[in-house]
């Protein structure tokens, strides 16, 4: 009988990586056994499964069974190259050093060094309770700053990433990239072997070679020693830098990230006479003007910015108003109340025009002067500009202008002037001494180094920056140059383009394997602690820099601890025994009181700006022709996340592209180019883009709301490194990128290439077909009870007639429900990745997405309305809405989807036979089907990161959002054992927990005081497809646009 079909894994409930498909189909056939001692060993080292190790071994054997075919066996061997077998030893040794590495407080379970988990079963660590997860605080950041994280760990295996509520930039939420860290950790393609010119090397040999090297360089003070690092604010990194420069006075450090912009630093320097960095306080801003700034979609401040912005979108309280000026729709642009599409190059014109406009108003004479420095450069619709100007004046002191990272120093300077003139400085924007090691770290910063290399002035180049050979502007030919450096030491996460041309390749320890520290954007320091021993013996950049101080044999842990032991005094309130202080720091994830205060006495030098502008503008991009503008990709950034299938398959927040990048062009431009659209609006002509002597083939994608005569190209694709997921996806827009104009320039030639390109779009349809699934209304309409909008909302929450009495859930302890606020949601899509990670949702690959078989349980629908050239946009997150009278249920022949006593729409994978009838009858189309076997070939190591609380679905089984029922059940059991009820807020779904905007509320509808109950009682509440009488448990809150009466259409 079915319920007892044997499954390779079914016989150990204590096996935590439930990594074979559920249900019994998966186990058919007699699996061949091949012994993979290395697999056992290495993974035993990484895994701290509870219970008898036999289960663990059986588990790995069953992996071997899974990979029984020679092909897979070989793959498994590749996963664990020579040297891997000694891993456990390595771990144990470092464990002895790490012992006592800090314990958590602040409601987080006690922390313990990851290495102890290499030897789990003979002595079980105190705090490990089989099957109960632990949480550890750490931090991670893409652009030099650190975002505070809390990582859930099952028996020593990180399984889920959340934000740290105590962290200034996180506030408990995360972005897309942080959620995807797990995939980076358990990635088989990671660099695993330390090499010199492809010769395997042991860490010790490496250290000795580094010793000799640094000895040689010490002779001439490091004249030919160079360091190329990521932009960083890490105190430890800065300290090491300082000490290295003391040892090698002539050595140089260069910070470089291809996505960093230098405009801000230079612009503010022009404005204030020195390098400062801007910090934004959106809570205080009632009028926000973004000049090509995607402050909600990207950047170290974005997570916090979203929370703060969303806070000002409630019609009850005074609402903020967002104006966005940008070429291509961004997450910020989608949330705008008014949007003006302008070529990136014309944004400067807009800034000056705005300054001029304000200059004409009483009290802003100074701005007039500055504007005059622009020598008549102007752009943008005057009516629009004057409306914005009036609005800004009206909200003097509570307005905020933000310039984008792509924009030139000129724009940033003018914006600084505007903010100053509008008295925003000190309230909505403050300026502080830069936290980053180097104020300039963008593509331009790389040029001098390139020259030095070309001139043969570099013998040793230590590269801890991400993949410069790929990301560097094409005209520098950096990959060629690197090959010329005698000792290029590359700290490689993957064997990527740079690794291919570097003489030394040092496998990097993953962020979750490393000790270190980081700063939030307000300067607050977080300690970074490892969650697990380096899976393949990677090393931290700390250790590499240490090698040049003769401290290479010291572990990062030791270096860090020493430096903080020394600095303890400098931290306010950190008194007492260092060990306790340390443990608190590590446990909390933040060191309270380490934030830096903004510069008080700064005076804007208007004259300087006025003089400076001319030169800057002259230097900036000009001329005619088509504009090409580059953006960091929403998914792979500059390529560093390109090997994460989660992110590759994540639909682009705006254009819903998966596994691709595109040349985004406006509908008008498409017409003039003769771009053809085939199939169901997802197959487009390919363009040839020529710029200077460089050319690239790029498939076009028609992007409503894009500026004309401008092409937006996302970076990070067209990878050629040894990364199985990343390679061959999309095209490399970087080949067009020049160091003189790294972000945008005009004068590109565009023509049609032969052939079409089929995109894996998850949403091909732009219009709502007059069905208004996502409701947006203007504040005016919303405040008028008799308006159509209000009537629509009323209608969509009114009680519907029914022939039989609805089931009564009021007697139950819990009645789960959700509310999603479209006013807050920006469409950033962090929730999708969070859901994927929490629920072991497989990725299916490009072809399957093209066929319409993507598996994400949660999707974010994006609709355009109004005219195509300049549409209004609204986004709507949609997962199973748990209808009380669910159409999917009564058509299921086998009771595989039914209702729980608390009104959840349950999906029982192991009962499902896969008729797909439920999906057909689901009006929301939120059910997902395992059309093929998407799970059984998941690499062994990847399975370590799977959520043991969630069954992995087998082929032929339907699945869908469960409201994270595994979290509900665990919390229920814990509270019931403790003999209490689940309190509001202590139970969060994965999407809700990750949401930066706090747009999702989940909880008990029987509790009248719960946040979700209140939300569902809101005036903006409505039910999706209400007229069908499905009684969804998930309610939506309509978006209210705070339109400027002067600009309101019609």
């Amino acid at each position, binding site marked *: 009988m079915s319920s007892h079909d044997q499954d390779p894994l079914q016989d150990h409930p204590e096996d935590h990586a439930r990594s074979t498909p559920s249900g019994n189909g998966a186990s058919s056939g007699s699996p061949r056994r091949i012994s993979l001692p290395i697999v056992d060993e290495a993974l035993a080292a990484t895994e701290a499964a509870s219970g008898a190790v036999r289960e663990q071994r059986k588990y790995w054997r069953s992996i071997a069974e899974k990979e029984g075919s020679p092909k897979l066996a070989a793959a498994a061997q590749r996963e664990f190259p020579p040297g891997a077998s000694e891993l456990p030893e390595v771990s144990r040794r470092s464990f002895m050093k790490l012992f006592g590495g800090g314990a958590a407080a602040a409601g987080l379970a006690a922390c313990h060094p990851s290495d102890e988990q290499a030897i789990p079963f003979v002595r079980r660590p105190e705090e490990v309770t089989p099957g109960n997860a632990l949480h550890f605080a750490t931090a991670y950041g893409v652009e030099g700053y650190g975002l505070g994280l809390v990582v859930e760990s099952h028996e020593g295996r990180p399984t889920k990433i959340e934000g740290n509520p105590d962290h200034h930039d996180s506030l408990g939420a995360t972005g897309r990239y942080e959620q995807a860290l797990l995939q980076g950790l358990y990635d088989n393609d990671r660099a695993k072997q330390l090499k010199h010119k492809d010769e395997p090397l042991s860490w010790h040999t490496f250290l000795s070679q580094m010793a000799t090297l640094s000895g040689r360089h010490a002779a001439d003070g490091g004249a030919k020693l160079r360091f190329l690092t990521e932009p960083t604010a890490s105190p430890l990194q800065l300290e090491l830098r300082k000490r290295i420069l003391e040892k090698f006075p002539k050595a140089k450090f260069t910070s470089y990230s291809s996505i960093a912009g230098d405009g801000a630093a230079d612009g503010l320097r022009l404005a204030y006479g020195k390098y400062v960095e801007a910090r934004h306080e959106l809570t205080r801003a009632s009028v926000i003007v973004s000049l090509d700034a995607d402050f909600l979609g990207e950047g170290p401040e974005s997570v916090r910015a979203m929370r703060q912005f969303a806070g000002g979108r409630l019609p009850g309280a005074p609402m903020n108003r967002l104006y966005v000026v940008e070429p291509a729709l961004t997450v910020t642009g989608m949330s705008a109340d008014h949007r003006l599409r302008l070529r990136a190059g014309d944004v400067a014109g807009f800034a000056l025009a705005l300054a001029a406009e304000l200059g004409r108003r009483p009290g802003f004479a100074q701005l007039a002067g500055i504007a005059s420095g622009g020598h008549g450069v102007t752009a943008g619709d005057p009516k629009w500009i004057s409306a914005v100007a009036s609005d800004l004046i009206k909200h003097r002191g509570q307005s905020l202008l933000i310039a984008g990272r792509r924009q030139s120093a000129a724009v940033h300077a003018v914006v600084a002037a505007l903010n100053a003139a509008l008295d925003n400085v000190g309230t909505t924007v403050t300026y502080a001494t830069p936290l980053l090691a180097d104020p300039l770290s963008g593509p331009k910063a790389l040029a001098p180094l390139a020259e030095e290399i070309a001139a043969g002035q570099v013998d040793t180049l230590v590269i801890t920056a991400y993949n410069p050979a790929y990301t560097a502007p094409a005209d520098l030919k950096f990959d060629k140059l690197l090959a010329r450096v005698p000792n290029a030491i590359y700290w490689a996460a993957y064997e990527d383009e740079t690794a291919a041309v570097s003489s030394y390749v040092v496998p990097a320890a993953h962020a979750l394997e490393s000790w270190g520290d980081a700063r939030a954007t307000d300067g607050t320091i977080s300690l970074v602690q490892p969650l697990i021993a380096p899976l393949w013996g990677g090393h931290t950049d700390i250790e590499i820099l240490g090698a040049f101080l003769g401290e290479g044999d010291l572990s990062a842990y030791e270096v860090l601890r020493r430096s903080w032991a020394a600095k303890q005094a400098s931290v306010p309130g950190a008194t007492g025994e260092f060990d306790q202080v340390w443990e608190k720091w590590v446990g909390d994830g933040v060191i309270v009181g380490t934030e830096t205060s903004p510069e008080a006495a700064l005076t804007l030098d208007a004259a300087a700006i006025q003089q400076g502008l001319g030169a800057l503008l002259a230097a900036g991009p000009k001329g005619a022709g088509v504009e090409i503008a580059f953006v960091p990709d929403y998914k792979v950034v500059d390529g560093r996340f390109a090997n994460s299938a989660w992110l590759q398959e994540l639909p682009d927040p705006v254009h819903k592209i998966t596994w691709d990048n595109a040349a985004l062009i406006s509908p008008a431009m498409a017409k003039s180019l003769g771009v053809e659209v085939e199939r169901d609006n997802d197959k487009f002509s390919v363009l040839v883009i020529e710029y200077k002597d460089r050319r690239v083939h790029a498939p076009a994608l028609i992007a409503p709301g894009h500026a004309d005569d401008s092409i937006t190209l996302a970076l990070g694709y067209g990878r050629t490194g040894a990364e199985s997921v990343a390679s061959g996806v999309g095209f490399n827009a970087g080949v067009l990128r020049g160091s003189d104009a790294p972000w945008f320039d005009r004068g590109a030639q565009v023509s049609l290439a032969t052939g079409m390109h089929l995109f894996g779009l998850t949403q091909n349809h732009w219009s709502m077909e007059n069905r208004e699934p996502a409701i947006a209304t203007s504040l005016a309409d919303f405040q008028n009870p008799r308006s159509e909008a209000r009537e629509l909302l009323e209608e969509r929450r009114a009680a519907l007639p029914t022939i039989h009495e609805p089931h009564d859930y009021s007697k139950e302890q819990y009645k789960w429900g959700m509310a999603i606020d479209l006013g807050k949601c920006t469409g950033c899509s962090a929730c999708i990745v969070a859901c994927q990670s929490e629920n072991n949702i497989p990725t299916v690959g490009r072809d399957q997405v093209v066929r319409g078989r993507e598996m994400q349980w949660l999707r974010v629908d994006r609709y355009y309305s109004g005219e195509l050239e300049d549409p209004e946009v609204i986004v709507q997150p949609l997962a199973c809405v748990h209808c009380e*009278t669910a159409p*999917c249920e*009564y058509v299921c022949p086998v009771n595989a989807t039914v209702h729980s006593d608390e009104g959840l729409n349950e999906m029982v994978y192991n009962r499902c036979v896969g008729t797909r009838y439920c999906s057909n009858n689901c009006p929301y189309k939120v059910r997902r089907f395992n059309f093929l076997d998407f799970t059984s070939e998941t690499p062994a190591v990847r399975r370590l990161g799977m959520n043991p609380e969630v069954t992995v679905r087998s082929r032929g089984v339907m699945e869908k959002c469960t409201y994270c029922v595994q979290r509900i059940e665990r919390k229920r059991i814990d509270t019931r054992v403790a003999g209490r009820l689940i309190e509001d807020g202590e139970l969060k779904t994965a999407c809700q927990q990750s949401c930066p905007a706090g747009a999702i509320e989940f909880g008990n509808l029987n509790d009248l005081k719960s946040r979700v109950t209140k939300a569902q009682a809101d005036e903006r509440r409505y039910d999706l497809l209400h007229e069908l009488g499905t009684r969804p448990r998930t309610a939506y809150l309509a978006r209210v646009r705070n339109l400027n009466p002067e600009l309101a259409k019609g």
Partner: protein
Amino acid sequence: MSHGGGFEPRRYVIGQFAGPEAMLDATRKMRERGHKKLDTHTPYPVHGIEEALGLGRAKIPTIVLCGAITGACLAYALIYFMNVVDFPINVANRPIHSAPANIPIMFELSVLLGGTSSFFGLMALMRLPEPYHPVFEAESFWRASIDGFFLSIEVPKGQSPEAVAAELKSLSEVSVEIVEESER
């Protein structure tokens, strides 16, 4: 093949007629003369055969009716037990016991049991399959399924087949054969 075991072979007198009418006529007469175990063998049903053989009302219809009724009741009971009594589950907040949803299966099961009972009931009544039957011994009997019209009379113990044969001959134009069951 010993003739032991007290094997009493059944004996038959078999007459072949030119056409159905003659056969019917003879059948009737023979029955009036008190012959009990009569049977006819024709390639297709001949009108008036029941009357000639003096058969009562057919039993099949009753059997089928019972089958059909059982089917309907069984279906309802089955569904009621499974979805209401044994494991009631809240499916989309629909009533646990909803009669309309049961109708299709009730109907199908009644047809199924009705139909099968008519077929297997028939087999039972005809005592088929029965690969061997003494009448097959007759030389020309193979025509019975093609274009022959036969009357077979099982001769009771004590009576001589010859006499019966003679009697049959005296009634109409017919070629008569006497066969005896062979032991198997």
